[in-house]
């Protein structure tokens, strides 16, 4: 079965510092997508970053970058120069080529001034 594990229920970081959120997944597929979604208190699910498994290069989006280790089935999110607005639940998600997202249990990120 395809599963996604986020082992850090909560993380905290000081403003302007860097934090890394962990995610591992289990699959027997070779082609798939991985995502990080952010859910602030407003409840809206916002895509942060996406990685295609067939690409070796790690995805980056401004202050957000991933460390994708396909052999280890690991997909961590690094947030640089953390801002107060980054405080939210972060969900790692796996998508096979069957049109659904399989989510991890989430990591609550707190940002302190």
């Amino acid at each position, binding site marked *: 079965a395809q599963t996604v594990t986020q082992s850090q229920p909560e993380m905290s970081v000081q403003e302007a510092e860097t934090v890394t959120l962990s995610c591992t997944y289990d699959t027997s597929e070779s*082609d798939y*997508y991985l*995502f990080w979604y952010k*859910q602030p208190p*407003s*409840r*809206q*699910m916002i*895509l942060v970053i*996406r990685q295609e498994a067939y690409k070796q290069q790690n995805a980056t989006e401004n202050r957000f970058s991933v460390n994708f280790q396909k052999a280890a089935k690991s997909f961590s999110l690094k947030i640089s120069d953390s801002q107060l607005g980054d405080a939210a*639940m972060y*969900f790692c998600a796996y*998508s096979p*080529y*069957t*049109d*659904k*997202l*399989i*989510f991890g*249990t*989430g990591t609550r990120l707190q940002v302190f001034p």
Partner: protein
Amino acid sequence: DTAVSQTPKYLVTQMGNDKSIKCEQNLGHDTMYWYKQDSKKFLKIMFSYNNKELIINETVPNRFSPKSPDKAHLNLHINSLELGDSAVYFCASSQAGTGPLNTEAFFGQGTRLTVV
């Protein structure tokens, strides 16, 4: 202009009632989904439709019935509501397919359903 919109945003109802949640997307996507987020924030897919055809039904009770009148709309009807149905229900859409056509899912703002 909202890409994926759900109504209502909040719904409080008594056990045993029947209720519907509506979802509309204006992104021109072929695929729409319903996800359920429980009290522990865990998100799980319930259904997906592609061009009005049911693709995924993840062992959801028969009391839940999705209906897609056209590819821009996917409604969720719930019969005989139970306390355990209390959750946040998210509608989403994507231009999904195999290979490079599989793109991100865009989510609605969610409907918080409370059954009392």
